[in-house]
């Protein structure tokens, strides 16, 4: 009987171990697949051209070119503007919920904000076409509202729940002694918030920004719908752009398998993977550093 129990325990342990490493195996599998397929693209394309040329035109009837610079710039541009919009708003909102809101407001506001993350990206994209685009043309007097700024606004909205939720946790977990000490020394509530509470929570806040950034970089449907998808190098916020994710989504559906074009799309996926991996790694390092100190 005792023996049976030990065997059962051992099996269960193995089972949970397998579950534990499954996610890692899947991640490794994805990386290997991207690498093995993506690397084949460089049999015909030079890595230098791939990374430094701004002309992506695989279906060219003259000469196919595979340069991803313009879409990398587009992706980073849209993401950066999204964060510029979302970070102040997100931290402000998190501070309010954590420090100022009455318990009842907090009880309602936090789940509602987190529900924003549940809105499907295609719905957000739809809003971009029917609401944000006409709004932008009116406000800025530009001819077309399907541009980088539109995508950035929507991505900002989409990364807000991540930023708010995690920053709020970080701000709330700042020990109340810090705050009390500051207030006892005669600092105002504003000074306490800006000079004591937020800096103490900075590692959590930075991690939330990084995670929000990961969300924004990888988003596909929304940007595909609202940025106009012109593969040219963007010169301003009001230019149409095509991001890396949108390119993969548009072209993978109809590209013939096992061609240079097909492999090149995997190479874009690999580049994107490396970028998001670095962002997540950075946020992990910052987060764990914050926890240790």
């Amino acid at each position, binding site marked *: 009987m005792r023996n049976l129990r030990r065997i059962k325990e051992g099996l269960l342990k193995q089972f949970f171990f397998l579950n534990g490493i499954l996610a890692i195996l899947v991640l490794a599998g994805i990386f290997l697949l991207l690498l093995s397929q993506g690397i084949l693209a460089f049999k015909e394309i030079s890595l230098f051209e791939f990374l430094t040329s701004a*002309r*992506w*035109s695989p*279906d*060219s*009837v*003259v000469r196919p070119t595979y340069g991803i610079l*313009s879409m990398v710039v587009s992706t980073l541009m849209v993401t950066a503007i999204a964060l510029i919009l979302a970070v102040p708003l997100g931290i402000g909102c998190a501070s309010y919920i954590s420090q100022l809101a009455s318990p009842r407001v907090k009880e309602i506001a936090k789940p509602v904000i987190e529900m924003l993350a549940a809105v499907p990206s295609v719905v957000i994209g739809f809003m971009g*076409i029917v609401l944000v685009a*006409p709004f932008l*043309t009116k406000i800025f007097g530009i*001819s*077309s*509202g*399907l541009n980088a700024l539109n995508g950035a606004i929507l991505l900002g909205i989409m990364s807000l729940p991540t930023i708010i939720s995690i920053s709020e946790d970080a701000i709330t977990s700042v020990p109340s002694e810090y705050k009390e000490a500051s207030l006892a020394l005669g600092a105002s509530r504003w000074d306490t918030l800006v000079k004591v509470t937020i800096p103490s929570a900075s590692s959590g806040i930075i991690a939330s920004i990084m995670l929000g950034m990961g969300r924004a970089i990888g988003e596909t449907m929304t940007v*595909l*719908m609202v940025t*106009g*998808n*012109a*593969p*040219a*190098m963007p010169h301003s916020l009001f230019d*149409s752009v*095509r991001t890396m994710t949108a390119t993969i989504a*548009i*072209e993978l*559906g*109809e590209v*013939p398998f096992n061609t240079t074009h097909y492999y090149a799309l995997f190479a874009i996926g690999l580049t994107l993977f490396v970028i998001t991996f670095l962002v997540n790694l950075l946020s992990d390092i910052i987060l764990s550093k914050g926890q240790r100190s």
Partner: protein
Amino acid sequence: MLKRIVYSVLILCSVVVIFSGCGGKKTDKKSIQIKGSDTIVNLVQRLAETHMQENPDVSIAVTGGGSGTGIASLINGQTDIANCSRPMREGEIEQAKSGGNAPLEIVIGMDGLALIVQRDSQINSLTLDQTGKIFRGEIENWREVGGKDLAISLYGRQSNSGTFEYFRDRVLKGDYSPEMKRMNGNAQIVEAVRREAAAIGYVGVGYVADQEGRVLSGIKILSLAADSQSEPVNPLDSEKVKQGIYPLTRPLFQYLSEKPEGALLDFIKFELSPRGQNLIKKEGFYPVTDEYKQSNSRVLGE
């Protein structure tokens, strides 16, 4: 405990019943899958609805996604009919052959591709050559073709669209300007052009005009001349389109993986019948020309 078992059994049973219900219906209903070109998805949808009303035991599902997507599904055996606004490519035919039969080609109607600008534009006509230069990015300002001093804003389709390829091969004979905004479908192009004074785009005539030649509000359809000597022709002039004088007239294809039988054959016959062709006219397209009528009857073995 007992309660929970009873509940789960009940749920399981209801799930089984629901699914078996679906399965049962499918087997005695004749279902046809149609997929492909966004240019004719509405047209084929209308044809299918009319056909289904008269034949309640047939169910037809029509989806878009672009010509390339339709052909890929046909090759993979995921659809019965592939709608296509361009002829099948060599490579695609080869691929289809290696998986089974050579695909059969039916022409269900003709389409005039329309160049559209905003209603208030000063431009009324362009030559084919000018249009090519505009979409290749060589002409960048409306001033160069007689319009206002305004940078041209290009709208086209994404690369999985048959219209994208047809327009490139017929008009550009080169690559699209990277500045061209690639839209998801015809309706999006129309919407964008309606809003933007500097815009030009290409869509199927059926998307901007109805049978009587009434154009959507806010849109102007440009006339097109084959070269600088010939007279510009408007795609709304259905006689000229029928005679093939309008430079951007193209056949609309449906591809099948094997000789149609039963419900599938009935539907295709309906499309090509006078009533079907009338519906095609109503949707803003043109009936099949004599040349393609012959090839159709050869394919159907009449």
